[in-house]
């Protein structure tokens, strides 16, 4: 080392190393948070019934369960595309869970994309003023008519429920997709190792690198989660 060279004091080097490690940790945390988190704190908003479009879909699906049960019991009871659905459910039952996910994803994605009608319904926040809202399809409605992205996600949800996947490990997640600059819906699956998979309508299953998404909200039979405005625990209860 030359005489004119200035040496960095050890304390400064330690601080720099600590700062670099902190930045690295922050980057890793940010990356980890990019994946869908089922247990993100403060995101639970309300019961599923608080979201009318979804609650109505659950009610209609419950009414249609008998049609599906009859079809599964006897092929002659199946109308139109339900025969194919019956075949997929029966064959999928023989596969292990990961392959069930792949089969359901690809089967549902083969259905026709069709923008659904939006309907005018009163808004609570706008003093009863009518607002245009999305309609969410049941499995049978989707099989018969096709649908748009939230309908693909709901069809996968209902189909996997038929195969025994628990509701607590699945959510229909509405996202803002930065690349498309549009809102999109995917089905999120909670894995036993705590990670999440996203079943996409282009046949991919995103197991990580979900960074292109901004998660907005999510629903399943048990609840509604708000991923944009997480609230501190107890704040909603206190405000109600």
């Amino acid at each position, binding site marked *: 080392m030359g005489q004119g060279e200035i040496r960095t004091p050890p304390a400064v080097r330690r601080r720099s190393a600590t700062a670099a490690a902190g930045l690295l940790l922050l980057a890793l945390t940010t990356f980890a948070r990019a994946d869908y988190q089922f247990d993100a704190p403060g995101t639970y908003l309300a019961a599923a019934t608080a979201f009318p479009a979804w609650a109505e879909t659950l009610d209609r699906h419950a009414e249609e369960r008998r049609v599906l049960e009859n079809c599964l019991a006897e092929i002659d009871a199946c109308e139109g595309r339900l025969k194919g659905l019956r075949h997929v459910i029966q064959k999928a039952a023989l596969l292990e869970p990961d392959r069930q996910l792949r089969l359901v994803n690809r089967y549902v994605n083969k259905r026709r994309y069709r923008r659904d009608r939006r309907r005018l319904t009163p808004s609570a926040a706008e003093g009863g003023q009518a607002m245009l809202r999305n309609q969410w399809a049941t499995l049978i409605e989707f099989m018969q008519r096709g649908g748009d992205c939230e309908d693909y996600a709901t069809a996968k949800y209902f189909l996997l429920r038929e195969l025994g996947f628990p509701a607590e490990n699945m959510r229909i997640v*509405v996202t803002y997709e930065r690349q498309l600059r549009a809102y999109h819906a995917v089905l999120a699956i909670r894995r036993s190792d705590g990670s999440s998979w996203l079943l996409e309508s282009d*046949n991919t*299953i995103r197991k990580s690198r979900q960074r292109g998404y901004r998660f907005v909200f999510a629903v399943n039979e048990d609840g509604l989660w708000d991923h944009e405005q997480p609230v501190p625990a107890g704040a909603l209860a206190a405000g109600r």
Partner: protein
Amino acid sequence: MHKAIISFLCLAAGAVFAQETSDATAKDDDPVDLRVDVFEVIDVTAEKAPVAAGEETDPDIDAILEEAEAIESE
């Protein structure tokens, strides 16, 4: 006398109308309802067409999908 009765009825009808109107325009400030309203008007329509190379191929799954398609087209 008639004028008085008609005036009274008009006032009563006006009061009822005003009451209903004020009820209808009262904003719901429940935080859950406000957020649900935001969610419900989101137009979830991004279209992503299925791609063959989207997921690794699996001969068993391919076979099941082909069988299902054949059954549906019968």
